[in-house]
């Protein structure tokens, strides 16, 4: 058993091999005829990796297409040359999906960053893939609308990458994933063909909806070159509560009580040590009491009614001993400061180079799963600090294992990967997923079979063949 674990642990760090040749010398000859290109070492190291820092950044170059025609030309060229292409947005991914470690040509969409059309009647925006998520949100807000997919990386991530990874984030409980907001998509397939999918239609019952194949495909089927995103009414005066919950077993009782009576826009969990790290960074501590678990709950409160309901629920839960304290935001500034307790966890703990798991189980299974996972992790990581936080209302939890300062990075990663194997087995028992919203990329590839059946993975491979027969698009990502 130990041997098998070791082999698998090593497996995720050895990159897949694929039969593509290196063409570094020809880049400068060929690419400038198509679009701008860079091959300087600084650019290679920046554009060759995402926020997962496990893999070396070794692309051959970075192409910066400015039009759809240029993207098509790049894909045709890559097919002729057998050159692997890695799409690149804001590179804020955590699973290595945008990593280029084997001499690939990175295709950056940052120059395709124009908003093309705003349609107030359809409540939609059509834009290029390189538009930064926050730019899109702000553009909508200035016009009295709201793009509801939101997460901590909003200031760097791009809409094309959001679509390619079907990004989730903090408002999924109310608004769903990126998938729910894409009404039109233009993609260039691995064959270099342009598809104009769904064209902003709300209703379109004409057979297979290919749009949804590309959403979440992590750049392995086609490049997203234009998107139409839907907008909604902005939330009215969101109010944030943070509650102190002593027992893990009571977390979902609080969830059920609140969800039954209020339309929640967020329901987030974090543990006491997450709070400690964030408070150490200067974020104000909300309570005098301390507790093992904290919940952040957000709902609209344009009238007094939702807050009165929340107070009644709190009072009942307090009497039952399920919560021991709570605070409420009285202003937008306080709402933002309370959100920092949750959103700053990643940055506050980045110095410890955490090993990250992003898992999901059916919401109803959260408590039994967490108890089993807690047993597993405290047994396997007796001397590591483990952080639990995440979108628990969606059944999604992030587990961050902090690296002890004295431990070597690669040894730490190998030990964590071995535990991830056991965690993946546990997830399979609970019908869970080894990647809730971070994608598979490279980091979760070895565990894909715990969430997807062999038959299912075969269909995935067949689909890949259809759209990208030469395997030039982001090879080695999701599966080999």
């Amino acid at each position, binding site marked *: 058993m130990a041997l098998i674990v070791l082999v698998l642990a090593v497996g995720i760090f050895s990159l897949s091999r694929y039969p593509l040749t290196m063409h570094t010398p020809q880049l400068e000859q060929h690419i400038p005829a198509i679009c701008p290109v860079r091959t300087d070492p600084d650019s290679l190291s920046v554009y060759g990796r995402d926020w997962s820092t496990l893999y070396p950044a070794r692309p051959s170059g970075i192409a910066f297409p400015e039009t759809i025609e240029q993207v098509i030309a790049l894909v045709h060229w890559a097919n002729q040359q057998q050159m692997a292409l890695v799409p690149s947005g804001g590179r804020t991914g955590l699973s290595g999906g945008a990593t280029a470690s084997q001499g690939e040509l990175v295709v950056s969409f940052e120059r395709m960053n124009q908003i093309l059309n705003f349609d107030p009647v359809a409540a939609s925006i059509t834009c290029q893939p390189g538009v930064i998520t926050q730019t899109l949100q702000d553009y909508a807000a200035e016009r009295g609308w709201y793009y509801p997919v939101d997460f901590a990386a909003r200031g760097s991530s791009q809409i094309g990458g959001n679509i390619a990874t079907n990004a989730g984030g903090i408002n999924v409980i109310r608004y769903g994933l990126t998938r729910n907001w894409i009404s039109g998509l233009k993609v260039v397939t691995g064959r270099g063909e342009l598809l104009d999918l769904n064209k902003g239609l709300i209703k379109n019952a004409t057979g297979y909806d290919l749009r949804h194949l590309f959403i979440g495909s992590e750049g392995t089927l086609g490049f997203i070159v234009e998107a139409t995103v839907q907008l909604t009414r902005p939330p009215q005066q969101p109010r944030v509560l943070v509650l102190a919950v002593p027992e893990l077993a009571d977390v979902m009782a609080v969830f059920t009580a609140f969800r039954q009576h209020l339309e929640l826009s967020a329901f987030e969990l974090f543990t006491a040590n997450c709070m400690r790290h964030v408070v150490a960074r200067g974020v104000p501590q909300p309570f005098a009491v301390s507790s093992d678990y904290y919940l952040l709950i957000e709902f609209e409160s344009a009238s007094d009614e939702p807050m009165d309901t929340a*107070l009644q629920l709190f009072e009942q839960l307090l009497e039952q001993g399920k919560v021991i304290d709570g605070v409420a*935001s009285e202003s*937008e*500034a306080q709402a933002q400061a309370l959100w920092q307790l949750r959103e700053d966890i990643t940055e506050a703990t980045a110095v410890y180079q955490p090993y990250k798991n992003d898992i999901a189980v059916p919401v109803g299974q959260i408590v039994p799963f967490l108890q089993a996972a807690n047993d597993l992790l405290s047994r396997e990581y007796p001397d590591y600090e483990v952080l639990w936080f995440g979108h628990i209302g969606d059944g999604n939890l992030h587990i961050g294992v902090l690296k002890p300062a004295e431990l070597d990075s690669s040894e730490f990663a190998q030990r964590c990967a071995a535990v991830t194997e056991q965690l993946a087995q546990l997830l399979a028992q609970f019908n869970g997923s080894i990647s809730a919203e971070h994608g598979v990329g490279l980091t979760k590839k070895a565990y894909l079979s715990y969430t997807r059946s062999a038959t299912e993975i075969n269909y995935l491979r067949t689909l890949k063949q259809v759209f990208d027969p030469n395997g030039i698009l982001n090879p080695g990502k999701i599966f080999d």
Partner: protein
Amino acid sequence: MKVMVPIKRVIDYNVNIRVKTDGSGVETANVKMSMNPFDEIAVEQAIRLKEAGQAEDIIAVSIGVAKCQETLRTALAMGADRAILVQTETPTEPLAVAKLLKALVAQEQPQLVILGKQAIDDDCNQTGQMLAALLGWAQGTFISALNLDGQTLEVTREVDGGLETLRLPAPAVLTVDLRLNQPRYASLPNIMKAKRKPLTTLTPDDLGVDISPRLTTLKVAEPPQRQAGIKVSSVAELVDKLRNEAKVIS
């Protein structure tokens, strides 16, 4: 020691202010309103005095529309003991507010009035000083630290050259600056308790104060839009534009 804390309900600091299309003022319909952030600091300071055993009774006071009750409830949830609303639909100016507060001081007999140095809506920065003058009390403005020793107050003020420390006798009016403290969150148990704390409503007439505005607003306009920058392709072009378009060099 009894402490009075006047607080103002203002458009939330994080809201994008929009000017009404007819130029008569700013849009307040369906806009998030909150306690003036400087007044939040004043409430926090009063509560800290109480927690240190230096104040017994904290009275939060607000002047304005009925909805100001919400803001007063926030102060009560933070830890104020009771609240008074002087209800009026008339827009209030600093002198009118100072006169109303003077009347309330006569009624409640506090030894200390702590309030924000200014409100973030009109930025007047007048009420505290006017109140001190009307009462003939000592005043410590823009304070960033407070030490209370019996009936003597020692305050630190942030001035242009650095920090100035003053000693003043009670009774006094203090206006607070940003760095005095970090206001606490209202806890849910305290929000519930605040619903049962006493909140009295008066009118300007009850206090015998005429609050008719003395100022007339002629027009409210957006600040001019900042022009987008341009890119130049060469130093020569830059110098040319600086010389002939911007006319900042000769």
